[in-house]
C-alpha cells in the first residue's frame, strides 16, 4: 500500500472542467473579456436604478445634444438620454444574443451529435432535414412565425435560434464523424459503455473547441440579426430599443449627430471583442494539450 500513500500526495484528481477553469483564469485576455461581459450584464439589468432618465420620455425641446454633464453620452433627436437607451437596449441585445444562441446551441449540438454518432440512415434523414431548412428563406420564415403567433420577444429568440442551429448541427456532425472513428471510441464501446456515456464523456468534450468558436461567432450574428428584424418592423418596436436598432438609427444621422452612432458602435464592438477573447480562452482552456506545464 506504499504506492497508495505516494499517490495521495499528488492530491485529488481534477475534472476537465476544474482544470479548464484553472487554465482559463490564467489567460488574461479571456478573464478581461469575461469581466467586461459580466459588467455589461449587470449594468443592463440594473439600468432602472442607474440613470435618472426614462428610456421613453421624449424632450422634443431639447432635441439632439452632444455629450454633457447632464447627459453623459448626449441625447437623440427626440431628446432621449442615449446612455439610458444604451443600458436598456443592452437588455434586449444581450438577451437575444445569449438566449437565441443557447437555443441554437442546444438544438444544433444534440442534432449533430445524434446524427454523427448513429450515422447511416438516421444521419441521412437528419441531415436532409437540415438541408431543407437551409433552403427556406429566413425572412419569410420569421414573418410567418410572427403572423401565426403574434409579436413576442421570446418568440423572436426562438425564431432566430431555430435558424442559427443549422450550421451548428453541420459543424458538430462533421466533427463527430471524425472522432467516431478514433480508437478510444472503439475502446469505450468494447468496454460496454452505453451510447449516452460515450457521447457525453468521450465525444462531446472533444468537439467543444469548434462548438465554442462557432458560438462566439453566432452571438454577434444574432445581435445584428435582431436589429435587421427590428428594422423590418419584426423585432423590437419603439420606444424599446436595442444596440442594433440604436446603431441603425445612428447611421441615418451620422453626419449631424455622430455620437448617436459612435457610442452604440463602441459598446457593441466591446461586447464582441470580449466574446472573442473569452471564446478563444475557453477553447484553449478545454484542451489539455495546450496547457503549459
Amino acid at each position, binding site marked *: *500500500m506504499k*504506492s*497508495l500513500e*505516494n*499517490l*495521495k500526495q*499528488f*492530491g485529488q*484528481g*481534477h*475534472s*476537465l472542467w476544474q482544470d479548464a477553469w484553472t487554465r482559463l483564469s490564467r489567460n488574461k485576455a479571456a478573464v478581461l473579456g469575461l469581466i467586461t461581459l459580466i459588467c455589461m450584464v449587470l449594468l443592463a439589468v440594473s439600468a432602472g436604478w442607474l440613470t435618472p432618465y426614462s428610456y421613453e420620455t421624449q424632450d422634443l425641446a431639447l432635441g439632439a445634444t452632444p455629450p454633457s454633464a447632464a447627459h453623459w453620452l448626449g441625447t437623440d433627436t427626440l431628446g432621449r438620454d442615449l446612455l439610458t437607451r444604451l443600458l436598456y437596449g443592452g437588455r434586449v441585445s444581450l438577451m437575444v444574443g445569449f438566449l437565441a444562441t443557447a437555443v441554437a446551441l442546444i438544438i444544433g449540438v444534440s442534432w449533430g451529435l445524434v446524427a454523427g454518432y448513429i450515422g*447511416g*440512415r438516421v444521419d*441521412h434523414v437528419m441531415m436532409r432535414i437540415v438541408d431543407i431548412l437551409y433552403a427556406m428563406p429566413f425572412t419569410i420564415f420569421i414573418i410567418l412565425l410572427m403572423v401565426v403567433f403574434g409579436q413576442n420577444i421570446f418568440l423572436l429568440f426562438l425564431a432566430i435560434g431555430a435558424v442559427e442551429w443549422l450550421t451548428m448541427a453541420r459543424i458538430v456532425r462533421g466533427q463527430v464523424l471524425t472522432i467516431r472513428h*478514433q*480508437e*478510444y471510441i*472503439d*475502446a*469505450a*464501446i*468494447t*468496454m*460496454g*459503455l*452505453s451510447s449516452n456515456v460515450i457521447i457525453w*464523456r*468521450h465525444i462531446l*468534450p*472533444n468537439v467543444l473547441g469548434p462548438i465554442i468558436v462557432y458560438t462566439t461567432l453566432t452571438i454577434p450574428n444574432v445581435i445584428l440579426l435582431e436589429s435587421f428584424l427590428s428594422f423590418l418592423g419584426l423585432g423590437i418596436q419603439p420606444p424599446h430599443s436595442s444596440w442594433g436598432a440604436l446603431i441603425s438609427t445612428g447611421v441615418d444621422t451620422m453626419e449631424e449627430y455622430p455620437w448617436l452612432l459612435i457610442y452604440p458602435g463602441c459598446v457593441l464592438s466591446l461586447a464582441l471583442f470580449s466574446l472573442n477573447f473569452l471564446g478563444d480562452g475557453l477553447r484553449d482552456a*478545454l*484542451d*489539455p*494539450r495546450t*496547457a503549459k*506545464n
Partner: protein
Amino acid sequence: MRSIPARQRTDSLSLLTVNNLSISFQSRAGRIIAVDGASFELEPGKTLGIVGESGSGKSVLCYSLLGLLRSPPAIIEKGTALFDGMDLLTLPEHRLRMIRGNRIGMVFQDPMTSLNPYLSIGKQVIEPLCLHRQISRKTAWGIAIQALEEVGLDGPARLMNNYPHQLSGGMRQRVMIAMAMINKPEILIADEPTTALDVTIQAQILELIKELQREKNIAVIFVSHDLGVIARIADHVLVMQHGRIVERGSANDIFQHPRHAYTRNLLASIPTGTKPHKYDPAGRNQHNVLLSVQHLKTWYDGDNSFFGGNTDLTVKAVDNVSFEVYRGETLGLVGESGSGKSTLGRSIMQLLDIKEGTITLNNQELAGLGPRQLKQARYNLQMIFQDPYASLNPRITIFDTLAEALQIRNSMSDRDLLAAVSSLLNDVGLEPAHVYKYPHEFSGGQRQRIAIARALAVKPQLIIADEPVSALDVTIQSQILELLLDLVRRHGLTMIFISHDLSVVRYMADRTAVMYRGRIVELDHTETVFNHPKHPYTQTLLSAIPVVKLTRKIENKATEITEK
C-alpha cells in the same frame, strides 16, 4: 564565408560531403537540437543507410540537404554539405531548385500522399523533365513511359493516363521512384520509402532500388528505422540517436560487431526466436475452447447510399473463416494490409456487423445477443489498439480512463479505486505518480502501457491485440512485447495477437494463422508455420522478411502476388 578544409575540397572520391552539420528547431519550449554535428561522405554508386528511431534526426538531416526544412522553426546552426563544389545549405533557392529533382532525387515515405490525387500519373512524371530540360511535352511523355517501364510497371503507356487512386501502394512508390530517377540524378535520397508498404512489396521495392543503382551507378542515401531493411540494402551505415551519429561503418561491421551500446540495444530489440514459455498442448481440448469462430463472413457493402448498396462493390473482407482459441493460449494472426486480419478482430469484438457465421465465447453465441446481454458479454472481450495516440481520450486524465474501465462491472469506493488504479499502473510498469496526467504528457510506449492497463482493468477472458506494437520504435516495441508476455504468463491471459510483422508473431504466439484475402490459408503451431510453411503465400511472406543477420540473408523470391 565558411572556411572549407583543404582536405575536403580536393577529395574527389566523395560525391557529397557533409561536415559538422547541426540543425535546431525553435519552439515555445526553447531550442531543440535535431541534428548535432553530423559528418559523413557519400561515394558514387554506394548506398549509405541511416538508421535510427523516431526523433533521432535522420529525416531532418535528409530534408536539410535539399533545403526542404521550413525556417523558422528550423535553423541550420553550422556545418556544410558540399555537393559538386556547392554548399547545399547556403545555396540560394533558385539554384537549389536546379538541383532538386534533377541532380538529387528524393523518394518520400508515404506513397499515398506524395502524389497529387488530381493529376494523372503522366502529368506528374513529366513534370521534373519539362522543368529541368528544354524538351517538348511529347518527348517528355515518351521518356516518362520508358521510365515507368524501367521501374517494372506493366503497361506504362496506359498507366500514364491513370490517376494515383487507381494504383496500389507499391505501384505508387514505383512511380515515385521513376519520378526521382527520371533526370538521371547523381544522388537518390529515399526517406523510409518502404515503411508504408507490405513486406512482400517492400522486398520488391528494395530489389528495384538496388537494381537501378547498379545500372545507373548513382549514390543512394537510404533512411529507415528498420534494421532489417538497412541490412538488406546499405553498403555503409550510420546509426543516429538524439541527433548524433553514434556509430558508423560498413553494414557488415555494424551488424556483426556493433560497438556502441545503442546499436547493440537496437539489434537486441529485434524479436528473434519463439515464445519463451510454451503453452501446454494438453490444454487444447474440447472443454477448454474459449472462443470458437465458425464460417464467419464480414463483407463491406460498396455503396452506402440511402436506397441500399450496390452489390458489385462489396468487399469480402473476411470470407468464411473458422478457428478456435483455447484458454490460456496466444493465437497469432498474421497477414498483409487488406488481408482482413483487423476486420476479423473487430468482428469478434462486435465492432462490425457480421454477415454470416457464428462467434461463440464461453459457449455463448454473440451475434444474436440483445444490447443488454451484449454489454455483459463485452466485459469478457477487450482490445488493445494499434495507435496509442488515438486510443486514449485526450481530454480525460489517466486516472479517469482507468477508473472508468475498473468500474464497468461494479462501482468502487474512492479509496479502493485509487488503490486499484495504482496497482494496475504498477502491473504495466508505470509510476503511479503519473495518475492525474493527460495522455499527451506520455510517450508512445507509455501510452500503449496505459491502453494495456485499460484492457486489463475490465478483467476480460480474451484480449485481442491489433498491431499493438507497429506504431512504436523498435526498442519500445521489445519492451511492450516483454510486458505482454509477462502479463500473459502472470494472469494466464488468452490473446489473439494480430500483426503484419512475422517475427513479432513468431515471438508472441503459440499457434499462428496466416490470412490472405479474407481467408485463413494456414493455421498451425507457430514453429510448424515458420519452419515448414505449406501454403505458397506463407512461403512468399517468409522469404520477404528482411533479416538482419547478413550471413543468412535470404534471397528475394517475392512474386507480384499481392500487387495485382
